[in-house]
């Protein structure tokens, strides 16, 4: 079938504005009589807090200091509503928002921020997700009986029996750290009233969800909230959870004037989610021909102080734990755990990015034990049309994994390289004898 535009490398429709400097990101909007907002954030990881905002409110040029008392419904969150718009009694991580100062200039708002007295009464904190799973660990959220908020179980076949039949079994633990999206445009936003509608202009991945979250927090109908989503300077998952949207909406609704806020790079790091660090414990076994027979994995994902997308991330990690291979016997336990670390949420790959760090090294180790090259072991086990995944899903269409493996092999010559290396090693060993 011939297409006229599909399949053609058309020039991006938004590129012209971007190369001439006319694309407008939220910070590029200015309004008459606009006020500036700044967020006060927690400097402790786990503490009861008390705020004294009197000095700030008395400062010349300060219009108002917003705290939890001003928020009609002080909650938000993409799955569990476990974030407070402003912390009321306790902070759960460094960076938790406590107050939003609105002033006639950015400088005054910044100055006023420093005059707010925060009394922290620190309580035991937990930073290791494996320790956080233990019964006596400090609770990050008291309304949850445990820090474990999600457990995904995958059970297929019988791993105990299958491991007995394996010619080779590899067991190893892997860890990956917490990282940031590092999109180039730090969060910024401008909100104003259009009649009785609250308009928030901010860079977001999902304007209609922001609309819902703002409406719920402000306790107004969704129709009275409008989100304008202009040019977005990268996202990668880091603009899924809202940051300043409710702060701005609340302030403009109460004050009736346009409010703008622009985060610094540092505040951007503090404000948005991170990639889940994971501890991944793997046991993988194959027969003497390199055919995978069984895999067992335990995945512990540290979601930090808030759930964000943790449930979905750890579910996706669990489903993808096998890698793109047919394995008849599989047992996976995937957990999402609260700690007092920065909160983790969506980031490019969403749990499926972490597990290959484990399953792909397991594959190479199995191959090496059996003296099979890394390409062949993948071709022996890789999904093809009609394969069944560990969840029992049949891959009924578009499964070109083997074409991908072969294309890489044709370009890089891994197989040949492996054989040469084995010969060299054999020769060295021969010389040694």
């Amino acid at each position, binding site marked *: 079938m011939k297409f006229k*535009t*599909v399949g*053609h*490398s*058309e020039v991006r*429709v938004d590129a012209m504005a971007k190369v001439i400097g006319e694309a407008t990101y939220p910070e590029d909007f200015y309004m008459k009589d606009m006020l500036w907002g700044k967020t006060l954030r927690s400097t402790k990881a*786990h503490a009861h807090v008390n705020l004294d905002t009197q000095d700030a409110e008395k400062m010349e040029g300060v219009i108002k200091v917003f705290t939890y008392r001003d928020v009609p419904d002080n909650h938000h969150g993409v799955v569990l509503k476990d974030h407070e718009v402003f912390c009321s009694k306790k902070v759960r991580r460094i960076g938790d928002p406590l107050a939003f100062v609105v002033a006639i200039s950015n400088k005054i708002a910044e100055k006023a921020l420093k005059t707010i007295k925060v009394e922290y009464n620190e309580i035991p904190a937990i930073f290791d997700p494996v320790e956080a799973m233990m019964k006596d660990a400090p609770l990050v959220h008291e309304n949850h009986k445990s820090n474990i908020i999600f457990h995904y*179980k*995958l*059970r*297929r076949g019988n791993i105990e029996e299958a491991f007995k039949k394996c010619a080779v079994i590899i067991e190893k633990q892997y*860890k*990956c*750290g917490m*990282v*940031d999206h*590092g999109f180039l445009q730090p969060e910024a936003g401008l909100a104003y009233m259009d009649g009785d509608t609250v308009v928030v202009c901010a860079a977001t991945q*999902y*304007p209609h969800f922001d*609309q819902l979250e703002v409406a719920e927090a402000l306790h107004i109908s969704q129709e009275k909230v*409008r989100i304008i989503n*202009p040019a*977005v*300077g990268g*996202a*990668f998952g880091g603009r*899924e959870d809202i940051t300043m949207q409710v702060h701005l909406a609340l302030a403009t609704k109460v004050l009736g004037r346009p409010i703008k806020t622009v985060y610094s*790079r*540092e505040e951007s790091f*503090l404000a948005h989610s991170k990639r889940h660090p994971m501890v991944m414990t793997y046991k993988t076994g194959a027969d003497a021909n390199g055919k995978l027979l069984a895999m067992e994995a335990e995945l512990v994902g540290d979601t930090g102080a808030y759930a964000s997308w943790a449930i*979905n991330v750890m579910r996706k990690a669990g*489903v*993808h734990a096998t*890698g*793109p291979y047919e394995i008849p016997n599989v047992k996976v336990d995937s957990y999402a755990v609260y700690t007092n*670390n*920065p909160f983790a949420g969506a980031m*490019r*790959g969403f749990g*499926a*990015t972490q597990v290959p*760090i484990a399953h*792909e*090294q397991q594959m*190479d180790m199995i191959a090496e034990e059996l003296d099979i090259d*890394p390409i062949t072991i993948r071709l022996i086990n890789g999904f093809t049309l009609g394969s069944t995944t560990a*969840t029992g*899903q049949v*891959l009924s269409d*578009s499964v*070109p*994994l083997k074409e*991908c*493996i072969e*294309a*890489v092999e044709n370009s*890089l010559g*891994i197989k040949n*390289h492996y054989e040469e*290396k084995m010969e060299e090693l054999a020769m060295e060993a021969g010389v040694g004898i």
Partner: protein
Amino acid sequence: MKKRGKGIGSIFYGTGYGNGFPDVSNAIAELLPDGKVAIYVGATEVGQGAKTILSQIAAEVLGIPLQQILFVCEDTATTPDAGTAAASRQTYNTGNAIKIASENLREEIYRLAVEHLKINSKVGLKMADGKVYLNSFPSLAVTFKEIADTFSKQNKRKTLRVEGSFTALTTKMDEETGQGAPYWPYTFSVYGVEVEVDTETGLVEITKAVCAQDVGRAINPKLVEGQIDGGFAMGVGYTIFEDLGLQKGEMKNRRFSNYLIPTALDIPELEKIIIESPEETAPYGAKGIGEPVMIGVAPAILNAIYDAVGVRMTEIPVTPEKLLKAINKAEE
């Protein structure tokens, strides 16, 4: 000493929210008075190219050049909910919704063309360059603009607007066994890299890199390549650079001066191989690739490091200090 090694990482990635969650995209297609077509959809352009490829899908259905599509996605007041720009779902989910909306508009335009041309059937009508014409008698034709005019006159100056909606099919997995069909479609990706490890400094340099990326069908090959390049760079950062330096819940590295992301000097040339295998339920066969393009990078580098120096790095990021320590330990 500098040692070279090669490694591979192969992955699959299931698109969408998954697990039976209603994964819905809505779109509106509108015939404008000047004969152009507007698409209204709440799908964010985050830089991935959504505006362009979603416009291409509409243009293809309606047989008009890309420039004749007005794509509106920036405002909840004018756009329907198309879900989040995440889970690599916009091409597949919203692409399908826009394709359906555009097909619905095409049917409406055909219906109006039948009236306008006073013919007895829409069979044999074709659409190209903003015109509807009879395939067997091409001079019998009507432009989109004329159809827009007629519709407006007959409908109190309203424009012709139609909707399209798409819901991806997934199932909720069993709570005890995790069995089910949690995502669809799956996208495949394989990276191969050659690294050079300096055994005295622990520095890892990527000297060659190749990605073979399943795309279903590439709506815009150059944009696909751009996604691969970007995913690769982010993957390199994840594997050997990026570290927030968490200490008791505090990020010690929260500036670009200490949270190091790759620069142009850290990224090698990358060979990009697009593998097409159109997926039946996808718009023109196109699958999402935004996330898959970064996933295979880390394992390929880690396997290449092992191949080069014989140590298994089980913890990322593999900073020079960590790698040096591991190399020294292995030599003991």
